């Protein structure tokens, strides 16, 4: 609030900007006994984004050219601000003190007589400070520019309609033992239909079949449950295959997956 007051007066006042208007008169020098409520000072201090910002403010407030800063004046004011912060036990960031030291250094270097020889032309001690101030100022401006860009949920809103999201059927379902039995029943029913001749007596061992299933799994990673049953083997073969799958399942050597309810059941290697 205090800051915006001084801003609005900028056009009227050519010299130093007043801190405040008291009974209609501008107050340019801060009185020594001025009481600033701590809250208000916090407002002042929080308004600055560090020492460069404070320095820029001091320069701009007096309509000074950034390229020709009267170091003495600015340093005096800068230190005043810092003392003010100090008086109010405001936790002073170290950066502010570094800047005060830098200003003092520049001033002292400017006081030194310049070397008469042209061999070592010393840079203007202010040059580095000016460069940093300029650099900071352009990004301060850039930040304001970015703030001015139309922004989602502030300046524009994303147009939306309600979308009734269908249930995702990509989820891999755990196979219920009931489903497995149902599938087996289906297989058996088919085997019944397709049996047309007596199967040659052949000893089909469950162990053998387990190895066979694991072999096929090793080669193909995933095989369908149905593919384990062939009509040539008939009921007996189907039974052996089914028992082999159950045994392997019990031993946690394979996993059963189903992509959707009532879909094809697949066998995968465990793990």
């Amino acid at each position, binding site marked *: 609030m205090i800051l915006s007051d001084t801003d609005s007066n900028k056009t009227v006042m050519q010299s130093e900007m007043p801190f405040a208007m008291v009974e209609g008169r501008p107050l340019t020098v801060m009185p020594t006994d001025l009481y600033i409520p701590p809250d208000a000072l916090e407002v002042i201090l929080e308004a600055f*984004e*560090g*020492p*460069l*910002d404070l320095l820029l403010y001091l320069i701009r407030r007096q*309509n*000074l*050219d*950034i*390229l*020709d800063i009267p170091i003495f004046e600015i340093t005096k004011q800068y230190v005043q601000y810092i003392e003010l912060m100090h008086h109010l036990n405001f936790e002073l*960031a170290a*950066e502010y003190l570094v*800047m005060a030291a830098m200003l003092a250094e520049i001033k002292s270097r400017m006081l030194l007589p310049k070397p008469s020889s042209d061999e070592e032309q010393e*840079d*203007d001690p*202010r*040059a580095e400070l*000016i*460069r*940093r101030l*300029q*650099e*900071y*100022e*352009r*990004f*301060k*401006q*850039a*930040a*304001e*520019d*970015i*703030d*001015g*860009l*139309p*922004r*989602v*949920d*502030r*300046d*524009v*809103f*994303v*147009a*939306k*309609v309600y*979308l009734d999201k269908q249930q995702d059927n990509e989820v891999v379902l755990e196979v219920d033992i009931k489903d497995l039995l149902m599938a087996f029943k289906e297989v058996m029913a088919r085997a019944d239909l397709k049996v047309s001749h007596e199967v040659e007596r052949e000893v089909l061992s469950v162990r053998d079949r387990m190895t066979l299933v694991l072999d096929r799994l090793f080669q193909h990673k995933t095989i369908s449950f149905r593919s384990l049953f062939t009509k040539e083997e008939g009921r007996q073969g189907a039974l052996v295959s089914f028992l082999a799958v159950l045994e392997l399942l019990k031993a946690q050597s394979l996993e059963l997956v189903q992509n959707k309810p009532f879909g094809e059941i697949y066998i995968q290697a465990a793990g």
Partner: protein
Amino acid sequence: MELKELKNTVEAALLAFDEPLAIKDLMQLFPEQEITSNDINLVLNELENEYQDRGIELKRLSKGYRLQTREKVQPWLQNLQQQKPKKLSRALLETLALIAYRQPITRGEIEDIRGVAVSSKIIHYMMDRDWIRILGYRDVPGKPAMLGTSKAFLDYFNLSSLQDLPSLAEIKDIETLEQELVFNELNNQADKNQTEELNEN
């Protein structure tokens, strides 16, 4: 597929999904059809024309296309808004500006220019919103992360590319600066003009 049907589907898709959709995404809507990117382009152009005089517009962003309300209508929409949109702090905006214009940039470099420490809170906030990301680590002691902006940043600020960012003010290099210093001593009156010039740039 008829053009009108194609257009309606594309429009519906743009409205149905939260993220901007690229032409590539839109083509995925029609896996079985022989729809080319030209077809999609054509209907997008038509949609753009149709929305010309409407309260919403079709906006091209970095990730793709988005249907959004026009900036013009915002003052009225504001009246219905439950809570005011959160303001971004100057510290955040300055840090974001440095990352946007100077990427890849490290925290230390940001601190050098701003003259104050970068708060981790600000970096995390921008990371969480996916505005900035780590582009890599600089091969110097401490391996500082190099920060840059992401597409979400461009989309959030209505930009289609980094080129659309407002141009950065020119900086006078030290040599011309030195000349200016001499010049200024001779002619102090010109001061104010130059300040204004600098601001305009």
